[in-house]
């Protein structure tokens, strides 16, 4: 099982009627790599998958899989393994015949395809259920059959369309580990579509965060989580506080930055990286500490929420409403005045956007 190839999407544009749903999207998935397309519904991730599968035609752009140009090829000739959210098993065929279906289309003799299908069922741990009908299986078992059915044709590319969304939480985690292990073992190039950030980050080599038909950032989960490149991605991965600032003075590595209402913050470039004149300081709630000493950004405390290891406060400041964290040892009341100090290790600097 070494059939695998890199996938290249070049300048894909797609429309539903007059609505543009995919806007000049380019993406390279390396041989054997698993890339997730992550985003809210309507961001174009499923459209991208359907374009690659051939169920939709792009208005522009091309799709290549290794040496083959898929763009004009009908879907039945693309040789891509697909796993669907609702399993899409053939209800009238036994589990074994479901798995053997693709081999039958490839003209394999009955004996060979049964042997291959049985071996694949063995790999997903369902050898005993070959004679059952899909209706008699649990959700997790059905998705394993679907996985076996997609893998048995030894496709150079595997695609998953929200494959775990119909499973319960515990099974979802087990299944994603299983999918990743099988994908690694086979070394099959894979595209994984999901709206679940944890799922995408845990399973992927790289993740493409999508919005409005475009990829906003494509990188490893680690980089996305710690160094988002723009405000959209920052918000997506939990940087709730975006503070627009402008550099007032530079003194070596230290920068004095001013925001709305004349508030100033001292920031250290040796810990934050280079700071442009106009920028946005992004932090998660845990990266913005509520203190009672007069240092940082003055604020008025609002609603306090208990989160187990810390308190979160809704706060009002001159730069807008923010969410900050305070220690359990010192619960503060709504209406009190306090100050906010950014934890520079947990902040990142984003370019100012005109949006």
């Amino acid at each position, binding site marked *: 099982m070494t059939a695998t190839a890199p996938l290249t999407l070049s300048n894909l544009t797609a429309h539903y009627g007059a609505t543009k749903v995919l806007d000049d999207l380019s993406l390279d998935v390396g041989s054997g790599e698993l890339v997730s397309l992550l985003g809210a519904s309507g961001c174009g991730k499923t459209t991208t998958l359907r374009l690659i*599968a051939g169920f939709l035609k792009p208005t522009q752009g091309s799709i290549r899989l290794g040496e083959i140009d898929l763009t004009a090829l009908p879907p039945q000739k693309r*040789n891509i393994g*697909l796993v669907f959210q609702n399993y*899409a*098993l*053939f209800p*009238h065929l036994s589990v074994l015949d479901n798995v053997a279906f693709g081999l039958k289309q490839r003209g394999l003799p009955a004996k060979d395809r049964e042997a291959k299908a049985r071996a694949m069922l063995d790999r997903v741990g369902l050898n005993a259920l070959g004679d059952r009908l899909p209706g008699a299986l649990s959700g997790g078992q059905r998705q394993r059959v679907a996985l076996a*059915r997609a893998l048995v044709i030894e496709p150079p590319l595997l695609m998953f369309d929200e494959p775990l969304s119909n499973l319960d939480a515990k099974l979802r985690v087990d299944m994603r580990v299983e999918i990743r292990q099988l994908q690694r073992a086979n070394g099959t190039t894979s595209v994984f579509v999901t709206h679940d950030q944890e799922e995408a980050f845990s399973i992927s080599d790289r993740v493409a965060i999508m919005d409005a038909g475009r990829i906003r950032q494509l990188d490893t989960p680690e980089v996305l989580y710690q160094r988002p490149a723009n405000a959209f991605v920052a918000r997506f991965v939990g940087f709730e506080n975006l503070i627009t600032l402008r550099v007032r003075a530079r003194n070596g590595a230290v920068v004095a930055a001013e925001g709305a209402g004349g508030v100033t913050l001292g920031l250290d470039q040796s810990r934050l990286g280079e700071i442009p004149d106009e920028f946005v300081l992004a932090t998660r709630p845990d990266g913005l500490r509520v203190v009672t000493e007069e240092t940082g950004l003055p604020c008025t405390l609002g609603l306090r929420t208990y989160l187990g290891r810390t308190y979160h406060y809704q706060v009002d400041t001159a730069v807008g409403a923010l969410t900050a964290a305070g220690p359990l040892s010192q619960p503060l009341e709504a209406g009190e005045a306090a100050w906010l100090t950014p934890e520079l290790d947990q902040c990142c600097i984003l370019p100012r956007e005109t949006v």
Partner: protein
Amino acid sequence: MTQRLSPALIAFAVLVYLFLLGPLVIVIGAALSDTTFLTFPPQGLSLRWFEKIFEMSAFRRTIVTSLQLAFASTLLALVIGIPAAYALNRFRITLPSWLSTLFVLPVLVPEIVLGFSLLRSIQVGAGLPVLWTLLLGHTLIVLPYCVRVVSASLASFDFTIEEAAISLGCSPVKTFFTVVLPNVQSGVIAAFILAFITSINDVSVSLFLTGPGVSTLPIQILAHVEQFFDPVVASVSVLLMFLTVAVMVVVERTLGLTFLAK
């Protein structure tokens, strides 16, 4: 948990069953009567009125015509209706909603009117032979049943299954026959039975479209009753009943089994 049924409810249920089965019992009884006139309860028992049917060439001929017509129009309606139902469901979002209503129209138009308009347009207007007009008329009246019943089964069909088959290398046409059709077979069987019964029992449309030398069994029965009052009418009705039931059983058995065996 056992629940005591009220006697009034039981009595009502019995009445409903009597109402449903009574006419059948009377017809079967009359058909077995030994008398030369229609009567119930039967006086004496005899199968001679059944023999009589086959001695009368008009009945023999029309039984054959009715069966041919029912089979042909049902098959024709399925050939048109199954793809239509498929398209209506597959492209439900993109197709205008009145399109599916269009296929029900023949049921909404009174059959008398339908028969008359077919007579004027096809038979007289286009000069088509009687048997062909009958076939067209019957196809038209059974088509709505085919489209509706097959549609109902397709409504619960998940079309991503079709995409799964195509992604595994199956052509769209082959996918239709090997994946879509087997999963709506119960709907197809039900449509066949409904359409067949509708065609073989039809009077109003056939009344207009039958012509010299070509008639259907119900029209022949009607013609017979107008002239005679013997139990042949009852026995031929019983025959028609059993014919219908037999077709239902055969279709259910054969079509059901061959579909399951792929």
